[in-house]
């Protein structure tokens, strides 16, 4: 395969196309995913290619969409559903928490739900209220769910393919800010396993732990830090649940210092969980308390104010500076 320059949106589209070609039982449905190709065009052309039994519009009801996916998965299919925006997945929360997450457990493994719930999430696109939430912590808090979020074009493709093949329900969080970011990639090469983090950059001085929309910001901060003489490792979680303690802790032990970067509010969040785990497992390697750079604990602000909410390179560098360096 040769390398092609494509966007994350196109990579996701290709992953769906390839998954539907590879497995007849894969079906895609949701709001506006048919003729329109989804409001972000992730399902562009799928109805034309596979017919409206494989990719179709539903009535406008998220609880119905996820609920129907549960039944279809129980009956041998692999549904992939789209929640149009993060905050519009909340009407389906009851189905996700009460049924999607618990089915395998309550049936002693008899009923499996191989399904994917795709959720475009996060800010940075100037959306009005309810169009910029980071809802990953709600799902991560719910035992029984697998929660993944790509940060690169290649991972978007690879992770979605893996998520669709996965035997359990996967909440697939798509950082909408990165939909249009283009990369030169060979899609066939990307094979990220669910539950594996990856080191995106190596540096001996401190580790930045990030995922989804926060990853490019963390990488940029590492770039600037390097210019200023501090070498940072950057770990991309990719999979929030299951959490890859091994990769994360290896990096933290090696560097002795860590900052978690996330776009969601910090209180009772995925980022708090990471700090807790790293502290428990790497305490004796740590030279300083693990710091966090997250959003404030407020509802996602209106577009004119969102720049104050999102993690920035400066905030990350300030947090790194705070890690009790001997020379400072």
């Amino acid at each position, binding site marked *: 395969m040769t390398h092609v320059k494509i966007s994350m949106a196109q990579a996701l589209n290709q992953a769906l196309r390839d998954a539907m070609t590879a497995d007849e039982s894969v079906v895609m449905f949701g*709001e*506006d995913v*048919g*003729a*329109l*190709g989804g*409001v972000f065009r992730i399902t562009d052309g799928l109805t034309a290619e596979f017919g409206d039994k494989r990719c179709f*519009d539903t*009535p*406008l*009801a*998220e*609880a*119905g969409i996820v609920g129907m996916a549960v039944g279809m998965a129980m009956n041998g299919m692999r549904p992939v559903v789209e929640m149009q925006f993060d*905050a*519009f997945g*909340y*009407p389906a929360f009851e189905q996700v928490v009460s049924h999607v997450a618990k089915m395998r457990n309550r049936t002693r493994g008899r009923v499996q739900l191989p399904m994917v719930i795709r959720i475009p999430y996060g800010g940075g696109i*100037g*959306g*009005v*209220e*309810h*169009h910029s939430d980071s809802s990953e912590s709600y799902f991560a808090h719910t035992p029984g769910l697998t929660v993944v979020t790509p940060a690169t074009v290649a991972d978007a493709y690879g992770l979605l393919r893996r998520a669709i093949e996965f035997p359990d329900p996967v909440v697939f969080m798509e950082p909408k800010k990165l939909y249009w970011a283009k990369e030169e990639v060979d899609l066939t090469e990307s094979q990220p396993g669910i539950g594996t983090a990856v080191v995106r950059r190596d540096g001996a001085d401190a580790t930045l732990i990030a995922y989804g929309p926060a990853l490019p910001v963390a990488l940029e901060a590492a770039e600037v830090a390097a210019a200023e003489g501090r070498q940072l490792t950057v770990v991309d979680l990719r999979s929030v649940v299951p959490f890859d303690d091994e990769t994360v802790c290896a990096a933290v032990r090696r560097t002795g210092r860590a900052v978690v970067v996330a776009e969601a509010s910090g*209180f009772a969040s995925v980022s708090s969980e990471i700090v807790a785990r790293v502290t428990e497992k790497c305490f004796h390697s740590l030279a300083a308390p693990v710091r966090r750079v997250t959003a*404030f*604990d*407020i*509802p996602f*602000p*209106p*577009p*004119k*104010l969102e720049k*104050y*909410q999102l993690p920035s390179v*400066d*905030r990350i560098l*300030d947090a790194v500076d705070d890690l009790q360096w001997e020379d400072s």
Partner: protein
Amino acid sequence: MTTVEEHLLPSAEPVCLIDQNGVPHDHPSYRLPTKEALLDGYTQLIRGRRFNDQASALVRQGRLAVYPSSFGQEACQLAATMVLREGDWLFPTYRDSVSIMSRGVDPIETLTLLRGDWHSGYDPYEHKVAPQATPLATQLPHAVGVAHAARLKGEDTVVMALVGDGGTSEGDFHEALNFAAVFQAPVVFFIQNNEYAISVPLARQSAAPSLAHKGIGYGVPGERADGNDLAGLLAVLGQAVNNARAGEGPQLIEAHTYRVQAHTNADDASRYRQDDEVTPWLDRDPIERLTTYLEQQGWLNDDIRATAEAGAVQVAAQLRDGLMPEPEVDPADLFAHLYAGETQQLREQSAFLRDELAREEA
């Protein structure tokens, strides 16, 4: 004698009192509104249309983040509020800016949400207009709550709750209808069926004979009206409001109209519908047909035209002037209004941001 079931079912055809050629029609149950009401409606329609046009232009200039146009649906939006009294409530969707403005809300405040400086720009209590709802149908149970509380308090308030055709598929729509019926809450559920929920046509949304038919399952009387006929809408909605106020419980009205423009500026309508589907709807324009009728009655004089035009010019100028400067946003606002009191956590975060911005400035 009509049976209970028949009483709950809508008319066989949408009620239309002035047809698309401006010709009036008798109806067994509804009478033409008065000359004054129609002339007032005319003036408001002209203003509402200009509001839509100007807001759409401001989106193209980058002054508004987004504007869901109600071009062609102005008769619905205006009738919805024209039938209300001052003490009544309106529960709008994101598309109902014209309705909100006609309720007396300052046009700039109406657009604050869409400009992006705050999540809602007006005081809901001042004009009794709930914040615009972006999640679909979630405002409807609230409308029932406001109506129920009003009844408990002995007020004769009526609540007008707006929803789109797509919104009727959400669970909240069904729960709201059922609650309202069980508690006999004075709510008029008003569906603006404009044929599309973004790209999804009505046929893909519901298999019911009409959306007004959905009332019967809950024991709520349904009725439907031509959504481009201001006269018919005023008659049907007026009666629904009267019934609700008289203690007859919730009413469900469906207006048949059409979303002439795209869903928002982010939408590409050519992906899911052909122009030849849109064109016939232009001939059913709510303003044209009312104008024809008023002209034929000899009621539309230069004075009224001038007043309507002046109103339109004024609202356009107001939007241009009010939305042209970048809004001044205060980062401290981020931490305001989250809880009745302050929390230590937010105080710290607020101080952090203040320091950060001060350092940037230095």
